[in-house]
């Protein structure tokens, strides 16, 4: 059950990432510090579940196939923690605080990655779920609402590269 949940959740995160990095200026700003082809991977230890994102033209591009080489690797130590993250019961920052993840790479890159993932989740999840994983709720502006609709319909449901 956890495995199915994690794989589905990771696929949703991957599909949303491209659209978020197109429509959200803060995320685009974070990615502008990374070189073309920079690859980040979130994976679950010994499960084969992973979501790898590569920077292409300043946006996140979801790599649907498993990747070996990456510039930043974030490993969740077990499936239970990964499931909690997918269900928005645990944030990546909290997972870090509880030693539930291992980071391999540069700490500045890890900071940027955590911020972009948080933004992606803010678009994907309803407000009541976000309360568990973020101190600052996203502002409820018309622009943010429009972005949310685009990201969910174009990125996640239609699965279109933007």
């Amino acid at each position: 059950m956890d495995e199915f949940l994690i794989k589905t959740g990771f696929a949703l995160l991957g599909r949303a990432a491209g659209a978020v990095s197109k429509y959200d200026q803060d995320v685009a700003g974070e990615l502008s510090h990374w070189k073309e082809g920079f690859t980040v991977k979130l994976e679950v230890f010994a499960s084969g579940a992973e979501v790898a994102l590569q920077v292409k033209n300043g946006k996140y591009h979801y790599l649907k196939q498993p990747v070996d080489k990456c510039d930043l690797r974030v490993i969740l130590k077990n499936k239970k923690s990964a499931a909690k993250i997918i269900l928005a019961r645990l944030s990546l920052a909290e997972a870090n605080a509880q030693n539930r993840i291992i980071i391999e790479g540069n700490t500045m890159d890890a900071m940027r990655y955590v911020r972009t993932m948080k933004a992606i989740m803010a678009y994907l999840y309803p407000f009541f779920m976000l309360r568990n994983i973020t101190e600052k709720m996203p502002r409820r502006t018309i622009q943010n609402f429009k972005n949310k609709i685009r990201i969910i319909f174009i990125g996640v449901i239609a699965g279109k590269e933007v």
Partner: protein
Amino acid sequence: MKSFQSPAFYEFYSPVKILSGDNALDNIPYELSKKNSSNPLIITDEGVSKSGILKIVTKILKSGKIKNNVIFDKTPRDSSLEVVQELAAVFKKNKCDCIIAIGGGSVIDTAKGVRILVTNRTNNLKSLSGVNRINPSSVALFILPTTSGTGSEATQVAVISDNQKGEKMLFVSPYIYPDMAVLDPRLTVTLPPKLTAMTGMDALTHAVEAYTCTQKNPVSDAFASTAVKMVFSNLMSAVKNGSNKKARMELANASLLAGIAFSNSMVGAVHSIGHACGAVAHIPHGHAMSVILPEIMKYNFKKSSALYGELLLYAAGAEVYAATPEKERGTKLIGFINTMKSELEKKCGLSMLLPSDIFDAKMIKSVAEYAINDGSMLNNPLEMTVAQVEKVLKNCVAK
């Protein structure tokens, strides 16, 4: 008082053996033999060499039948890539089998860097920088700290400067922990008052941040709170009278305990901003810590006030703690830290503020932008934006 809540999950690791007290140095030959090591590379700096400490150590090694040792006493103030590479070559050429570092933060970081290079069989140190990128080492690393503040003798962190590129490389890995931390009163009695004050404030900052940052846990709390008590009870005495061996040893232990604590529970925004002040404005680390600590405590107050309140017991003692209403304890701790800062300024000239001629609006912005990307920010109890860091920094600058 709120009942203590352990985190849902935590890990704690500290593999460093501690030798602490009178004549601790004299046990080094025995401990080297237990590591099957007999040919050390000794890394130190000119200050240590001139102070006579190096002579004491080499004499002890000789008397313990450790005849071959290679000495390098030219470590610069900031550990540099060139020196690490040079020393890795010296280590290999002389077939050394262990490293003894005698000095402060820079010497210890250099020694950690040399061990990383000789273990990972590469000349490209940069490729190993970051988190969890290095391999376990069979080369024993003994640390003899001559300052009481960095805690580096008990941490899994090393910072090496790449002077050509003007950047600092950070290395974090459990394989960076030294094998042995040797605390002997002879190592720190010659430390000048201002440096004693700066490094002591660094140790206090490690302890306060370890006690309040996101990875805190019951084990790190025990180390951090004891360190707070030891700094408050001994820093002024050591600054006033450097030859007070008891105060020196207590401070050395405070630094070690705080190092063990923060190596597990991490540091937060004080260090992020302090690292930025060092990298962008070249402010000494201990000075930055001393100035920024109370301001960040005010910023974090709404999340951490109860924890600051708990630390008042260790900083001020049972009587003050009991006489202070629960809600006022956190604020009182900040007051105690500011009072100590003011006394240190009077006694040894450690300024309570950052210099206004360096910290203009442009510099404040550059430091703030650097700080929010520093890895320690991830562990601060509250998130910070560039604007919030700028506001904190403005309160830290002399008017």
